[in-house]
């Protein structure tokens, strides 16, 4: 196959490209330039958008012995990922930009261009496993290395996208991948894993949002209100600094009467009200989701599990859907689940589909 390897400059995508080449595929490496001004994104070895990362990817391609190019995806990335991130926060939701990037950039804009240019598939360093099921459909399963499993951020991919994807690392553990990188002479073997959001250089999401949103921010101040009494406990400098379940940064001068820490329970961007309360109020067992995407067949009703955030735990759940919207009843309640995040639905290790969380609630009392 003619395969396009998306190379971030990190160890995983380098080993994935090397494995694809070793498997006999005709591999071409590309690095996605996601910013016209690379300095505006994270610097150093932490992210995937710097000149250094581009050079690392190029050197890895040299060692593997494949051609290498940089593809400018900065417009697409800004429009579909960065703008979406800002508007979601402005609306009081908590988006996952990595999921969005996979859905709109890596397995859409990049894949479409690759297919048009005569490639058969895109290979990435994601940790997830693909196999063909008995019905002939491609199934995506969790990676062998549960600590690195990235099936959650790939949960938005459809059958058509999966049919043109290769994830050669799904059956490996990270430690082995690093050793393999070293054995192959890839200089990125010991490069630290990337974390956080690649386009926010210093990891200060709240500061970044405040600066970038500017006049588009829904508010620049408001009340922090107690959930039970309605009492105003303090002031904040804009709701975009908060996400549901957040504990830090509330700066409420006095403790709760019971001495327990307070958490953000709700964000209301129009009125600017941030509601806080004790941890148990974060607990939910019912989720409504929209914009469902299915990896294969759409299940009407499914008893399986859901994952509600990257590297989050699995919750047993019953999922019902009409194909577009989903209702998820959690048998294991969850805490701090924010609208905007993705719920990825699993049947065992297999990804069934995903939906964007639109609302959460608590129905049962004392089940936990």
């Amino acid at each position: 196959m003619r395969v396009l390897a998306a190379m971030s400059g990190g160890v995983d995508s380098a080993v994935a490209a090397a494995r694809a080449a070793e498997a006999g595929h005709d591999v071409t490496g590309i690095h996605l330039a996601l910013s016209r001004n690379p300095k505006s994104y994270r610097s150093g070895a932490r992210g995937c958008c710097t000149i250094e990362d581009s050079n690392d990817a190029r050197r890895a391609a040299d060692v593997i012995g494949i051609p290498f190019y940089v593809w400018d995806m900065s417009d697409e990335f800004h429009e579909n990922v960065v703008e979406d991130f800002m508007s979601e926060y402005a609306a009081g939701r908590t988006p996952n930009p990595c999921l969005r990037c996979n859905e709109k950039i890596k397995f859409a804009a990049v894949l479409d261009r690759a297919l048009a240019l005569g490639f058969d598939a895109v290979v990435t360093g994601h940790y997830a496993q693909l196999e063909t099921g008995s019905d002939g459909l491609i199934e995506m399963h969790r990676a062998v290395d549960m600590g690195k499993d990235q099936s959650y951020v790939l949960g938005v991919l459809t059958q058509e996208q999966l049919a043109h994807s290769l994830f050669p690392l799904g059956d490996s553990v990270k430690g082995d991948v690093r050793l393999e990188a070293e054995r192959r002479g890839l200089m990125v073997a010991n490069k630290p894993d990337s974390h956080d959001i690649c386009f926010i250089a210093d990891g200060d999401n709240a500061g970044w949002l405040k600066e970038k949103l500017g006049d588009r921010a829904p508010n620049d101040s408001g009340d922090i209100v107690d959930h039970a009494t309605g009492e105003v406990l303090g002031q904040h400098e804009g709701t975009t600094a908060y996400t549901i379940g957040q504990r830090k940064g509330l700066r409420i001068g006095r403790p709760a009467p019971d001495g327990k820490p307070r958490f953000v329970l709700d964000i209301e961007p129009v009125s600017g009200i941030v509601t806080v309360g004790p941890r148990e109020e974060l607990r939910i067992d019912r989720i409504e989701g929209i914009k469902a995407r299915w990896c294969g067949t759409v299940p009407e009703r499914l008893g399986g599990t859901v994952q509600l955030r990257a590297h989050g735990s699995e919750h047993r759940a019953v999922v019902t859907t009409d194909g577009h919207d989903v209702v998820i009843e959690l048998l294991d309640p969850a805490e701090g689940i924010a609208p905007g995040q993705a719920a990825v639905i699993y049947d065992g290790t297999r990804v069934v589909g995903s939906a964007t969380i639109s609302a959460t609630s608590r129905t049962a009392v004392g089940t936990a």
Partner: protein
Amino acid sequence: MTARRTLEDAMTTVYLDHAATTPMLPAAVDALTAQLTAVGNPSSLHASGRHARRVVEESREQIAQALNCRPGEVVFTSGGTEADNLALKGIYWARMRSANRGPRILSSAIEHHAVLDPLHWLSEDEDAQVELLPVDSLGRLKIDALRAAVERNPDDVALISVMWANNEVGTIQPIDEIVELAAAHGIPVHTDAVQAIGAVPVDFAASGVDALTLTGHKVGGPFGVGALVVRRELEVTPLVHGGGQERDIRSGTIDTPAIAGLAAAVEASVKSQADHHVRLAALRDQLVDRVCAIVPDAVRNGDPAHLLPGHAHLRFPGCEGDSLLMLLDARGIECSTGSACNAGVPQASHVLLAMGCTEAEARGSLRFSLGHTTTQSDIDALVEAIGPVVERARAAGARKGS
């Protein structure tokens, strides 16, 4: 994997990117390698030093003869970028300090980044007022715009810098008219001639320019060596301070082998320039005609009446230049999108934008540049590949706005 490209690779590659760099001429390889094992610093006083110095000075004379300048006017540098920096900053500073002329610098919108970036720095950090004058749709400086800019106040113009010929589209600039205009007001003229030497006649003295940039690897010489040819009368403030080896304008141990290679390449390329021009222009015209016959909506960029012989710059509507380049590369055909590569992020060419192209038009263009190793079979290979490549690139689409 070894990083070295074998002779076999080179023979199967259709190399149409001579404007980026051109293979070394045998005469240059001989001259360079002959000096690699010789001992002696040209600044040393003993016999070995004198020998090295002699090689350097003979090289200087060789270049002077080829370009019709005085040997003492040749200041060796590490290449074109350093020579451009030295000319722009060095002349600007000297003119500001000694002649109190400035702070305006007049240049064109289509200069190489080795000129644009120092100009940008001068305006940001040194309070220079840089005016980048427009070009017409064929990429030729609008001389009336330059005239108007000069005549607005000739006394505050520190210098004029306009390239001899553009590196991307190959349009030759009206150097005669620029010099005539500048001379009337005593304004020095610098020209970046890295693409012009060996391609068109370049006579330093006759041209009337005050400073001229050349570089080794564009004329069949080695990388990492070049020169600023600069009139003795013109004061230039040094950028690099040290031993003062080059007329006190440029310091650094003199690279004897590289200079010998440079001189051999300049001499050989200037000597063969006329024949080279005839041969290359014919191949180039054939390339353009045959490609346009296969891709009828392809558009030629550049000025056919004032064009370097080896440049064929073509726009392929509906295509991304990057896609075309990658698809051709996969077939062993090497060319350029002509775009400045900033950290590997392809930017739309400022040259094409200055010529009035839209961003999408600029992104859909390719530069094929021919050189001394180009043969008929290279053109045939490109002509054979271009149809399917354009078709496929079109399927992948152009960016928004096209």
